């Protein structure tokens, strides 16, 4: 069964790149271009996605705000969230992890295939500690 993935990413080039990679990896990909749209989509999705890949810097609602709202929603709070960003500050990483993200990935540091592999690992039941850090 295909892994149901919600990718919330405002940059069209990156969105398209990951979409291709995830399709190649046989994921069931849903796309959203900003935080608000992503939140609406995840609430509307049935069944819910197995994992959410969430950019940080986005219009309308940034990734951190989306993460907060996801964790406040009883129906959504258990969906693992991977933060995907090119913001590489220590504070950004710590903030995201403290809010409940399972991983913070700096996009430029990883090739799309590596990210697809991480998604597989996490969905397969890997805990955060088992996954190599950023």
């Amino acid at each position, binding site marked *: 069964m295909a892994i149901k993935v919600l990718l919330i990413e405002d940059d069209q080039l990156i969105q398209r790149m990951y979409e*291709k990679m995830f399709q190649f990896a046989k994921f069931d990909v849903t796309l959203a271009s900003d935080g608000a749209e992503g939140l609406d989509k995840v609430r509307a999705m049935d069944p819910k996605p197995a994992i959410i890949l969430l950019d940080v810097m986005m219009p309308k609602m940034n990734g951190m705000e989306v993460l907060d709202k996801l964790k406040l929603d009883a129906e959504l709070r258990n969906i693992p969230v991977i933060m995907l960003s*090119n913001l*590489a500050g220590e504070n950004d990483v710590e903030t995201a992890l403290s809010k409940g993200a399972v991983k913070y990935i700096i996009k*430029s540091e990883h090739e799309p*295939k590596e990210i697809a592999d991480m998604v597989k690992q996490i969905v397969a039941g890997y805990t955060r500690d088992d996954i190599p850090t950023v």
Partner: protein
Amino acid sequence: MTNDVVKDDHLRQNVDFIQPTIDLQARARETFLKSGIKLSLFPLVLFFILDYRSQYYLAALADGLITSVFIAVLIASYRVKNYTGLYNIVIGVMVTSMSMRLYTPVASRSVFIMPVIALAAYLLLSRVGGVAWSIVMCGIAFVEVMLSKYGFFQMSTNYQSVIYGIMGTAMLSALLFVYEGMSLSVENQALGKAGELVVVNRRLDQQANRNSHVSEELKLALEESQASNKKLVDTKRAIMNILEDSKSLQAQLKAEKAGVEKIVEVRTEELFREQTRLRASINSLDSGYLMTLENDQTAIFNPALIELLDLGDSVPGLKNVKSSEIVKLIQTKLGDSFDIVGALKDSIKNKSPFSAVNIAYGKKFINIFASPIILKGEEDVIGSVIMIYDTTEAMLLERSKDEFISIASHELRTPLTVIRGNASMLTSIYGDQLPEGDIKDMITDIKDSSIRLIGIVNQFLSTSRLEQKRTIFDIKPTDIATTISSAAKALKVLADEKKLDLKIHIPKDLPQVYTDESRTQEVVVNIVGNAIKYTKKGSITITAHVIKGFVEVDVADTGIGIDNENIKLLFNKFQQSTSNILTRDDSQSTGLGLYITKLIIEQMGGRIYLKESTPGKGSVFTFALPTEKIKL
């Protein structure tokens, strides 16, 4: 002196008057004594006349004699005391009683009763009582004689004798009393006058003595007074001299006072000017200035403080605000950002300054610096001086600088991510569809360049953060052997690719070091990576040892080595092993690696240096980390 003469004459006259009075007294007493003896003969004669025919005439004579003797004795005793009436009565009673004793044995009881009655009459009724008693006795006798004469009852002869005796005695007593009373009156008067005169004389004598004493005393007093007067004159003269001196001194003092007042005036003016200058300088500060004083005195502060801390509404009039009041106001505005009240208390208690930077104050950021005020030569703290700086702009600038780097890095990374990702996907997903040769190589070059560019961006970001000291270090006790081994795993691949021997010789008994493990791994990767990069053949050896509270790690290579002239520039920014900026080495590095490494090591409390280097033979880079926790 005139008064004394008058007094003496008066005394002399009084004494002349007193002398004849005393003679009269003596004569009166003599006359009285004689008449007393004469009078005492009357009972004797009377008793004899009454009884010369009876058989008792001898007894009567004897009684008369006895009575006369009593009278004489009593009158003689009068010289001492004046109890005339009493003596008369006693005489009468004694005569009567003696007669009764002689004429009738029956009347013997009256011998005891009558004197008692007579004495009681005198005591109770005084001299008048004595007279009255004599009259009563006489009256009773007369009544009894009359009653007997007219036959109402028969008196015996003896009884008649008694009655007659009583009558006679009473009458004589009365007469004697009157006579003697008169004599005594004269005598008393004379004696009284004489006595008074004596008393007066005595008093005058005493007065004269006293006057004499007084005169002596007055004389002495006069002499003393004269002496005192002389002294007073001298004293007056001295006082006059002193007054003269005093006037002179006063004039001098006045002049000096005027001088002092002038000096005080000048000094006051200078102080006022100085205070005004000081006040103006404080007021001209664009930073907040606050001086709190002990005992909650009025605080001193400048307008900049009020403006900076937005206290305009809270401190109306900007004056007469107590020290504690303004500190509390600031604390209220600070909220939980900073405990300025507590910090000030500690500062005063410990007599040490404190500073707090980048404190959130509403929408502003402030730096606070405070120092206790201790007067020179004293130990007590009299207050605190507090300087408050507005760092909002600097903070915003810093933040924008940091944000600029972050955003710039983010914006650079995003397209690089796309380039790298797509290039990677071309080779990994569609690699079998690509023709071998140039196209594949070109795609690989695109991917490698993007990776390199991403590395450069990361180094710029790291450099910026380290320079701004915004990099967060998680310093804790760390096993350096484990850290080095972990970092070396990734490097082993690179070494193997170049057929270099990567050797690690770390003693097992090394103490732990206080460091951030992740950053230390970055340092090891950088130094060992450089060693691999600049070594064509041979080995890279990592060793470690303890030296004076540090664990030193040596990374020795058999590489190209470094020229002496380049050694001092080695840890500079963008510095490579070549000396000319236009001349690049073939490592394709940015020249930021060692610079970043140095910043990391130093910000963790360690040090890094080139221990030795020989061109063509190799180099030894050393970094050291502390074995004890140190304050950074």
